[in-house]
């Protein structure tokens, strides 16, 4: 059964229609890679899923709960949206860690605030010990043991991005989204981040990955979406999209990518 269903998402910025009707679904525990040239709408789509952009049309459903419906204003109230966002985690291209907090605090801050709120509304919350232990486990999983007390500027880009992944995972999102997670990194640092994403895929984390790393997408994703000019041109399992693309535009795009490394 699909954990995520996206129906007919449209998004326009001024005169430019960036998304022209995007529909897809995602199975629990599977990973989806979205590929396509710059300006094809991949990032906007991801931002719509995380409620950073409001689609003009369309519907987003997670586990049969309609999170967003452009035709139903009831689904768009600000306090609700804040809660609905927690279905998704987002890892940004440029990390956006909080510079004034240690690595550990970057990971625990949002959870601490949510637990405090839960204490107030429901009278129960996870103790600080548990929050810290969970964060320590995530750091270990990211290969960042010993960096708890470091500040973001003291870390390499690859380490910062791994902290950002841990920060997103700390809220246990149902679906983890990546927006070109390695595009801001030096080539020698992309490997360590891709490794971490791969290990998440092996653990059956449900993921949506926007990426320019074709070899990685082919290797890790269960399903590929190729987008061009705001539309899904082709989708399917990686062997098919990469090995035997049906559409001319997909072939052209892949040819461009294999010729310019």
């Amino acid at each position, binding site marked *: 059964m699909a954990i995520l269903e996206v129906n007919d998402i449209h998004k326009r910025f001024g005169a430019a229609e960036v998304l022209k009707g995007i529909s897809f679904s995602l199975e629990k525990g599977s990973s989806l890679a979205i590929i396509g040239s710059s300006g094809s709408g991949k990032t906007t789509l991801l931002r719509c899923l*995380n*409620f*950073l952009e409001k689609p003009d049309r369309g519907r987003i459903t997670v586990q049969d709960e309609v999170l967003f419906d452009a035709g139903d204003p009831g689904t768009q109230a600000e306090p609700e949206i*804040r*809660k609905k*966002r*927690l279905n*998704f*985690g*987002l890892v*940004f291209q*440029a990390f*956006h*860690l*909080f*510079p*004034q907090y240690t690595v550990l605090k970057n990971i625990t*801050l*949002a959870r601490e*605030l*949510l637990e405090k709120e839960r204490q107030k509304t429901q009278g129960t919350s996870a103790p600080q010990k548990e929050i810290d232990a969970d964060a320590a486990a995530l750091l270990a999983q990211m290969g960042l043991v010993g960096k708890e007390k470091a*500040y*973001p*500027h003291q870390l390499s880009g690859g380490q910062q991005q791994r902290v950002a992944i841990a*920060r*997103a995972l700390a*809220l246990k999102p149902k679906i983890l989204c990546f927006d070109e997670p390695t595009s801001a990194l030096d080539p020698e640092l992309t490997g360590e981040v891709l490794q971490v994403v791969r290990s998440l895929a092996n653990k059956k984390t449900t993921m949506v990955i926007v990426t320019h790393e074709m070899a990685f997408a082919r290797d890790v994703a269960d399903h590929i979406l190729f987008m061009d000019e705001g539309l899904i041109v082709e989708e399917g399992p990686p062997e098919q999209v990469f090995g035997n693309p049906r559409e001319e535009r997909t072939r052209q795009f892949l040819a461009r990518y294999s010729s310019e490394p």
Partner: protein
Amino acid sequence: MSNAQTIVSRLVDSFQLNVQLFFLTLLFSLPLGLVIALCAMSRFKPLAIVTKTFVWMIRGTPLMLQVIIIFFAPGLLNFGAPWGSGASARFTAATIAFIINYACYFSEIFRGGIQGVPIGQTEAGQVLGMTRAQIFFKVTLLQVIKRILPAMSNEVITLIKDTSLARIISIKEIIMMAQEYTAQGLIWPLFSTGLFFLVFVGLLTILFSRLEKRLDYFRV
């Protein structure tokens, strides 16, 4: 000699007015400046426009004139005597003029500082389920403070020196006090007032460089 001692002690007393005006202005204009900055950035356009116009008027006219207007206008417009009477009324009026004036300057510094924080910081907070208030106080604010400290230090240093403008409505601050002696043919008291400001600004400079060091542990 005892005459010189008297003069110095009277200068010290009068400088207390400058210092009082300084601290009262800071105490109220900092929060008010933040409110003005938030209004100027409001997505509700009329509020932003009204606020920006107000800031333009305050920054566009001399503080000395504003002190005069705040002090005299209520009486001239038949609003009675909202500031009370006597020396305390003059001090109240000057304080209010200073608070409004400095709040407007601070608001522009705050606005620049807030808008200088990358939007990615806010978005990172949003996708982590934080409220707008949580994002502002837990994520943005300290980064804003770090960014604006140098500009704030400039403005605060200007403030202590501006306090002597209060003499325009006969508040006997240090320069006005010293000028009484100039009228009697004694010039050194007036010259010596510079030392009071120098020492005070020296202390402010040390304070600000300490604050900047305190925030040195992270980069924005």
